């Protein structure tokens, strides 16, 4: 897209007077949050509100023979006890499939299990009472008669003929399979000087949002309207789904999303217990609130990863990589999640493996199987950590096989920075990436050569430190290619409305949402810059289907790139409307005017002509003084969706410097570096903090985070004490650098940055651990890299 007509040549559209683009301005909403005056769903109460607690299956797979709620219903304060069969009368089931994932199948899922529980933690009955405590007391009195069924827990045997089929109607436990064969893989391996392979294992983990999933549904029978206060990343998607499954018109549903205590992809899905809560409100004709407790969070928030991926790489003696091959297997629980499905992660793995490199020979297979464990679905950096760990693990293996330095083999194989636009063997289209610039910057930041010298010296003294590198590509700014083409009613465009108010301040409504990333801040920055007003004069409203344009929300690193561009275009449109009105008042040519700092000025000289407050006063209160036939339009709406590229790929590279204690198996992270390229940086501080937070969400699963199930499908560490998340003392300082390659598809040029940190952190750590342990001739390709695992590989345990 070319620059706007009102941009002087030689300057970018962003070069506005007093631009906020690229400035680390603080977020406007922080003060409220720091004073404890945010409003999270878990803080909310409504008159006559009932609290729901779910009775959950203690078995991974069991038939429900009967539910006796007599005693529970008799307890003071209990409003109702509702079974799955009763709720099925109010809420229809759903099936989590998308048509562009050919062959993907799943079974109908009900808000509460009707006759069979398919994972430990699935809700089998709801108890609603006047307080949470009473509901919990009563839930203990609900007697459920179960017939235990054989659970399917090991993904490796899920497809064996002797393994029970979880959903007999589906025929087998294979939810989805994808195969890809590009180039001449067999020939490339045959001609390679070395071929190496390994199996990479990724534990299940989950997002552990500090505020658990919370929803407050309020069916007003008088209005015939359902208002759902929900911590969600996609309010309009939820509006559509509540309406569809509760047999309402969309106009009868309002979804309000206030402050959200962490999300990371956990809160973008349709959860059975949240649908049940909305259905209960309709059934009971009163507000009903559900707040998951921490054990429920571990047992029912979507899990992610849980992949076993075989990988193979061919390499020439000069370092040229000839081919990649993978065979990925993942277990997703008993249902494909709705509506985004649980096949996306495996699909992404196929798409992304080998992505940074020039090798054009690539074969892949991914299989997605059902099992009687909690459901898995899209969590931050969907598929990226797996693809990156497999790719970068293989590249390090190849380097080792030919005796080449890990930085050098990457230099020789990363796609050249002047080779764009180009594509990948899996069909990805790259507009402009900067792998070499990023790698060079990273190596300089970390002082790579000196670090290698230090490492060698320390090794002489029995101190085993490792350096791990990981290049990556990142999917951001998704178009309709992600979900819309598969039939999901998830908006891929976003919209922004801006309005000049009567005092010259600006009210902005955007369809993107805020979960802490800084959506509100960057929207205000972009709008203030586009119009020409101080940022503190812009108030941003988001997270309310009644009060924002229709749009997708905040997920898959789309808010800045897509919602930001909509904000830019809306701001520009309002500026033009302001100039038209001002020109009429001033009897000037609008082309000679501009808006700077809330004042209409002469372009060039910036001589002040009229303040926006005065202009708005005349426009709103004394339009009688304006010429006949002139109508000011001090409100503008614009939408945006990427059309040229299905996704705006970004790139980057990470490095980990760590020490392995070979006596205890403990890994100490000493330092972490990231260089990434998200295009135009709207707010450098917010980008850096997205990267840092993302890195730590990759370091957690690399070393600690793991949902541990036993062979009967019981989650054995579903609490904060036993499920380890990174704490401050264990985390390293993280240095972040940037290369800037704006996307030309938008005037803003911004791409996403939310996945980058998580994408490559585990790969860098795993490569560093193997680098540290290279004197011992061990190779560990499993995460989390626990002390137990490391000592076992070192044969010291």
């Amino acid at each position, binding site marked *: 897209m070319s620059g706007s007509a009102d941009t002087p040549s030689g300057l970018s559209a962003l070069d506005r007077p007093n631009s906020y683009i690229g400035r680390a301005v603080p977020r406007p909403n922080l003060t409220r949050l720091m004073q404890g005056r945010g409003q999270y769903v878990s*803080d909310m109460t409504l008159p006559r509100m009932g609290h729901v607690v779910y009775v959950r299956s203690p078995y991974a797979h069991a038939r429900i023979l009967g539910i006796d709620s007599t005693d529970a219903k008799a307890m003071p304060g209990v409003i109702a006890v509702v079974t799955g069969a009763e709720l099925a009368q109010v809420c229809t089931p759903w099936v989590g499939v998308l048509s562009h994932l050919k062959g993907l199948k799943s079974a109908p899922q009900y808000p509460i299990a009707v006759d069979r529980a398919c994972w430990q933690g699935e809700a089998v009955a709801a108890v609603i009472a006047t307080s949470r405590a009473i509901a919990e007391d009563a839930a203990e009195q609900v007697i459920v008669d179960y017939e235990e069924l054989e659970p399917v827990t090991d993904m490796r045997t899920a497809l064996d003929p002797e393994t029970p089929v979880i959903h007999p109607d589906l025929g087998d436990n294979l939810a989805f399979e994808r195969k890809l064969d590009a180039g001449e893989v067999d020939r490339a391996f045959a001609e390679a000087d070395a071929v190496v392979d390994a199996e990479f294992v990724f534990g299940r983990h989950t997002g552990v949002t500090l505020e658990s999933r919370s929803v407050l549904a309020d069916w007003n029978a008088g209005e015939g309207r359902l208002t759902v206060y929900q911590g969600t990343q996609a309010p309009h998607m939820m509006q559509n789904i509540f309406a569809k499954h509760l047999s309402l018109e969309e106009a009868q549903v309002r979804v309000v999303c206030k402050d959200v205590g962490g999300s990371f992809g956990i809160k973008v899905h349709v959860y059975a217990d949240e649908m049940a809560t909305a259905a209960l409100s309709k059934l009971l004709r009163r507000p009903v609130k559900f707040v998951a407790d921490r054990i429920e969070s571990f047992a029912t928030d979507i899990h992610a990863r849980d992949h076993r991926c075989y990988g193979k790489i061919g390499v020439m003696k000069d370092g040229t990589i000839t081919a990649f091959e993978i065979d990925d297997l993942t277990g997703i629980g008993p249902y494909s999640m709705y509506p985004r499905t649980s096949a996306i992660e495996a699909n992404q793995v196929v798409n992304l493996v080998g992505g940074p490199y020039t090798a054009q020979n690539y074969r892949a297979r991914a299989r997605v199987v059902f099992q009687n464990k909690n459901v898995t679905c899209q969590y931050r950096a969907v598929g990226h950590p797996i693809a990156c760990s497999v790719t970068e693990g293989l590249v390090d293996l190849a380097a080792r096989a030919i005796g080449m330095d890990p930085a050098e083999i990457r230099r020789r194989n990363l796609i050249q920075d002047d080779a764009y636009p180009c594509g990948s063997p899996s069909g990805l289209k790259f507009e402009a990436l900067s792998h070499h610039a990023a790698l060079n910057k990273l190596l300089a930041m970390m002082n790579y050569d000196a670090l290698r010298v230090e490492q060698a010296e320390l090794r002489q003294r029995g101190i085993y430190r490792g350096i791990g590198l990981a290049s990556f590509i990142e999917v951001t700014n998704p178009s309709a290619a992600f979900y819309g083409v598969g039939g999901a009613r998830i908006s891929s465009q976003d919209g922004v409305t801006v309005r000049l108010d009567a005092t010259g301040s600006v009210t902005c409504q955007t369809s993107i949402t805020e979960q802490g990333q800084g959506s509100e801040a960057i929207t205000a920055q972009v709008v203030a810059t586009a119009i020409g007003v101080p940022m503190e004069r812009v108030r941003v409203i988001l997270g309310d289907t009644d009060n924002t344009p229709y749009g997708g929300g905040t997920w898959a690193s789309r808010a800045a790139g897509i919602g930001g561009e909509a904000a830019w275009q809306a701001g520009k449109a309002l500026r033009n409307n302001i100039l038209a009105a001002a020109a009429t008042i001033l009897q000037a040519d609008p082309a000679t005017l501009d808006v700077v700092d809330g004042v209409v000025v002469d372009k060039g000289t910036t001589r002040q002509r009229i303040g926006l407050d005065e202009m708005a006063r005349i426009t709103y209160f004394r339009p009688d003084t304006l010429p006949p036939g002139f109508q000011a339009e001090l409100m503008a709406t614009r939408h945006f969706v990427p059309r040229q590229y299905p996704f705006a790929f970004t790139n980057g590279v990470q490095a980990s410097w760590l020490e392995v204690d070979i006596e205890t198996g403990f890994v100490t992270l000493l330092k972490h570096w990231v260089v990434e390229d998200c295009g135009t940086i709207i707010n450098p501080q917010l980008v850096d903090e997205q990267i840092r937070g993302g890195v730590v969400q990759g370091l957690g699963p690399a070393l600690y985070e793991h949902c541990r199930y036993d062979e009967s499908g019981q989650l054995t560490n579903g609490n904060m004490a036993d499920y380890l998340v990174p704490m401050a003392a264990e985390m390293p300082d993280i240095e972040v650098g940037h290369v800037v390659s704006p996307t030309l598809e938008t005037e803003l040029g911004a791409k996403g940055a939310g996945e980058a940190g998580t994408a490559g952190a585990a790969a860098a750590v795993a490569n560093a651990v193997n680098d540290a342990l290279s004197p011992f001739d061990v190779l560990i390709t499993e995460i989390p890299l626990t002390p137990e695992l490391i000592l076992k590989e070192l044969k010291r345990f």
Partner: protein
Amino acid sequence: MIAPVSITLMVNDEHVNAHVSPRTHLADFLRDHLGLTGTHLGCEHGVCGACTVRLDGDIVRGCLVLAVQADGAVVETIEGLSDSGEIADLQEAFRNRNALQCGYCTPGMLIAVQELLRQQSNPSRETIREHLSGNYCRCTGYHAIVDAVEATVRARNGANA
């Protein structure tokens, strides 16, 4: 269920009389009875630190103290510490450094930081990280929080010099 018990305490400089069920923990009492929802609940088993409040001058986990144990005590929450201005500089440092994202851990984090800074005038980066290890943050990765604490330390020491 055991009948409610009468308690009297000071919360953020206000006298509070209430009847609470003996099993109600302090965080639920503050949130549900007093509407002080700045005290957050992350795990309700004493691990995450989101419910950190001050009880008779010491920081405690609001989910591990029963409301009846606070009978006769002085309780300070994030709302009180914000209004008194005691942590205004720390909050400003968090704001300038974007040391919070979703903000859910932040009230507990700020109270835990202030506790450290009352004990030590010049803690090292490692000491700050160690002290904050009982307060989980899932958004920031901690680096910005440590930076903000360091900035506050520098400013307070500069002001005292």
